[in-house]
């Protein structure tokens, strides 16, 4: 059998990194405090001192540290992105997660020993695309966009020498990873170039007699009635009036939870499971890492009889966005 499935956990800061390491992550993924990563939120992420400390802490305990440099540089800020690659290599990270082919070429040429992962932002959904990145830039792992069914994931795994990482848990994008223009349209800031979907400066919440209102750059995108669960302030998860009806016209706030698919993911040879949420607090990282570690270990011991426990599901549902958890595209019969 192939190498054991790795658990890849998010860290927006040093305490989150440490708690992920302490609770059983195999890899922790991080970002620098700037637009070079897709979670560029005010006050989040690692400065030089904290990333060095984080790498030392993780490495002492046999855990890998990955740095996401997964936004797209432009001509006028190209040097900021290459400097980030240089820095990650100098600090001794275990891999960088890239989306831009130019940056991959830069990394391959200047840091031939640095391991490269293809970010979900790269939007590679078929093995030809992944193999192309492998041949040209030596990509060793690819994170699959959250659009493929289980049969399609298996097909990719079978036809590439590249390790495959899939999302296991957390918030869902509307599934045009690396290509979404909704945030740029409303706020002028995009996850792809500036690293933030719905940046804090554009978001306003207000409790009103009609419910809690969420506005994005002054535009009302949702109103939550009393007791109704809220979601992130992203345009894709807003409620809009279409043909006299107001509803989630693009996507309902929901979280991905693939715990029950673990035996299948292991069987088809997926290399790693990614937990979404670098923007979340250490409490979330602790809760989610603990459940997934336990689940992966249980499943490895006896995949045939694996069934998620009610306690695991309750813990994961508690921290989820929106009112439902979904198996996402993995579970769809059509392709």
């Amino acid at each position, binding site marked *: 059998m192939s190498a054991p499935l790795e658990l890849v956990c998010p860290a*927006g*800061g*040093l*305490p*989150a990194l*440490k708690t992920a390491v302490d609770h059983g992550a195999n890899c922790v993924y991080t970002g620098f405090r700037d637009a070079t990563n897709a979670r560029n*939120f*005010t*006050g*989040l992420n690692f400065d030089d001192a*904290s990333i060095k400390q984080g790498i030392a802490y993780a490495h002492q305990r046999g855990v890998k540290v990955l740095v996401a440099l997964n936004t797209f540089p432009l001509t006028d800020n190209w040097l900021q992105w290459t400097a980030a690659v240089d820095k990650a290599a100098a600090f001794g990270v275990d891999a960088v997660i890239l989306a831009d082919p130019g940056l991959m070429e830069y990394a391959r040429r200047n840091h031939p020993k640095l391991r490269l992962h293809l970010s979900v932002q790269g939007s590679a959904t078929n093995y030809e695309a992944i193999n192309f990145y492998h041949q040209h830039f030596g990509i060793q792992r690819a994170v699959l966009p959250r659009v493929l069914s289980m049969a399609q994931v298996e097909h990719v795994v079978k036809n590439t020498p590249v390790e495959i990482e899939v999302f296991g848990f957390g918030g869902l994008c509307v599934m045009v990873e690396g290509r979404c223009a909704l945030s740029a349209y409303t706020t002028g800031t995009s996850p792809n170039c500036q690293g933030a979907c719905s*940046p*804090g*400066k554009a*978001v*306003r*919440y*207000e*409790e009103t007699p009609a419910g*809690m209102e969420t506005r994005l750059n002054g535009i009302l995108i949702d109103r*939550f009635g009393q*007791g*109704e*669960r*809220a*979601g*992130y302030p992203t345009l894709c998860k807003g409620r809009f009036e279409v043909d006299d009806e107001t509803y989630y016209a693009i996507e309902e706030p929901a979280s991905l939870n693939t715990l029950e698919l673990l035996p299948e993911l292991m069987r088809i040879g997926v290399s790693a499971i990614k937990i979404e949420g670098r*923007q*979340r*607090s*250490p*409490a*979330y990282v*602790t*809760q989610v890492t603990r459940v997934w570690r336990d689940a992966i270990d249980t499943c490895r011991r006896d995949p045939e009889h694996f069934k998620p426990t009610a306690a695991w599901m309750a813990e994961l549902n*508690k*921290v*989820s*966005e*929106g009112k439902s958890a979904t198996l996402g595209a993995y579970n769809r019969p059509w392709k």
Partner: protein
Amino acid sequence: MLNNFRLPDFTIPAALTRLGNRLPQLPPTLALVTTLNLALGRMIPREPLEMLIGKRFTIRVLDAGMTLRFSYGERGFRPLFDASKPDLTISARTRDFIALLAREEDPDTLFFDRRLLMEGDTDLGLLVKNTLDGIELPRFDAARLSPQELLHRLRARLNPSHGI
């Protein structure tokens, strides 16, 4: 045993909330700003907080009927005496504020569950949240705030021979 301790879900009874509303808000506000000022430059780094200078904050502890108003300036936090519009208002119940401090709950989780509300300048709120999340706290033991534990400590204090 206490490792598995979970802060119970509680709400301060409405009668006490009404009482809280009528009590002067200055003592708790003073206690809060004094604590924050003590932590400034030690546990809480000053540099990332520069964006907060000149900003006005309100913390509403809903079930305790408390509204704490303060601002941040070059010289640290200080109480505010007027009720003009704050830049950021954070509202939650006592239990949830404690759980946040103890890192037992994630703010986004409470937000999804409609138990934490951040009104005003969301970016300031993100800065505060992310700065606090980045601090390495000494272990804060929420179990020490459980009713049984408080009672036990009170008893021990009233009756020293009971000893700890």
